[in-house]
């Protein structure tokens, strides 16, 4: 009986002692936390994607609070949450349209592969290292080995039927992790509300661009010359659309001799259909 009492006493006293030490320590070592940090954190996406450049969502919330990051730092959270964070921080709600990622390539099988069969690691970084600047004929385009698919936390990028990465514009939150992972650097951000896209990043001159891919931009400048808004410029043999100026008139879609510029809302697809190479 005495044993039981001893056991109870010793453990009870030990527990009480440690409890006391801990409660004293929690007062001594108290770190004051700004309640706003918790509030900001609740408005972030919570995926810990790292797209903002800070270690996790907690790091991003701390940076927003410290003023080193803008209230829009978390792209995946969207404009409503950015507005909520701005309110917490006592700022005006930011204006700005939703952005999404876009793959500047539509080649894939239409660009052709150098080898009958690639037996290396299924990864674009590895495919890039194959002698002669990668496995693809085109040395600028998407290799289609899915490195971007693996890093996407939102299931918003997939390899399509042509063997090219394609962004699901509805799911994309523009965290740009795919752009960081892509060894070819063909993924860029663009406004969600666009109609006309130009999926090519080939800087080669017309003839070789044509030889390497059936859906390449040859830099003919027909779109640049015909654009009524002056929104298209050809630089380094590849056209780019300035979405600040683009009015979605569709002139370039009609003029492009390669049928490369497309209206994404016309048939719901980015991919133009090109029958023969």
């Amino acid at each position, binding site marked *: 009986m005495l*044993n039981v009492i*001893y*056991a109870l006493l*010793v*453990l009870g006293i*030990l*527990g009480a002692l*440690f*409890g006391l*030490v*801990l409660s004293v*320590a*929690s007062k*001594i*070592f*108290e*770190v004051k936390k700004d309640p706003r940090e918790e509030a900001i954190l609740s408005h972030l996406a919570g995926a810990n994607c790292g797209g903002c450049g800070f270690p996790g969502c907690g790091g991003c919330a701390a940076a927003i609070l410290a003023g080193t990051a803008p209230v829009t730092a978390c792209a995946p959270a969207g404009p409503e949450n950015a507005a909520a964070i701005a309110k917490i921080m006592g700022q005006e709600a930011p204006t700005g349209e939703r952005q999404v990622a876009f793959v500047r390539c539509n080649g894939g099988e239409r660009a052709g592969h150098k080898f009958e069969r690639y037996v290396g*690691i*299924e*990864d674009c970084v*590895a495919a890039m290292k194959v002698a002669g600047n990668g496995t693809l004929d085109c040395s600028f385009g998407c290799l289609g080995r899915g490195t971007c698919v693996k890093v996407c936390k939102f299931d918003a990028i997939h390899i399509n039927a042509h063997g090219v990465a394609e962004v699901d514009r509805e799911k994309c939150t523009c965290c740009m992790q795919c752009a960081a992972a892509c060894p070819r650097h063909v993924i860029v951000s663009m406004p969600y509300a666009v109609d006309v896209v130009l999926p090519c990043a080939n800087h080669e001159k017309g003839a070789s661009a044509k030889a390497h891919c059936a859906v390449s931009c040859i830099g003919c400048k027909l779109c640049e010359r015909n654009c009524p808004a002056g929104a298209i410029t050809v630089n380094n043999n590849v056209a780019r659309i300035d979405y600040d100026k683009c009015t979605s008139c569709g002139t370039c879609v009609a003029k492009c001799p390669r049928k490369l510029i497309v209206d994404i809302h016309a048939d719901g697809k980015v991919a133009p259909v090109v029958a023969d190479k």
Partner: protein
Amino acid sequence: METIFSLLAISLGAILSNNFIFSQFLGICPFLGVSKKVDTAVGMGIAVTFVMGLASAITWLVNTFILVKFDLMYMQTVAFILVIASLVQFIEMFLQKSMPTLYTALGVYLPLITTNCAVLGVALLNIQNNYNFIESVVYGITGGLGFLLAIVLFASIRERLVFADYPKCWDGFPIALVTAGLMALAFMGFSGLQVW
């Protein structure tokens, strides 16, 4: 001189031939859970080493001056768990206040150590082996270093495994467990280690 040799023998045993992970199978949970990246593995290893050293010191004191005095040896497990849990909590608060950079670097791994059975294991083994205070502390710290060695080696292998071409059904823990098993076999080689 004799003490130094015996301490050296304890250290070598704890790091290599009696490695906590590969030959005693203690602390497997953080070993598998926090070994995807070398950086975090190093952080976890250092935190565990720190806590194991401190825990062996304090549990030895608690055992010698309280439990043995009152003839309550059968309470070791309960008392040690209490000590370790409070110790980790205390260290967490202390680090948050005085070394915030280290605190953020260790992150969630610090509270996780409470449930690391290698820490309780080292406290109980100290008593089982009849170690004195110095030996206990040395065994605790070198046991932690053995854990650090194991988890860093394992994490560097797992970083390479990401690019390896193995069947899909092996993805994740299956391939990690097979790797850990092979590493344990390799560490068995140290069991023949005879120094003096």
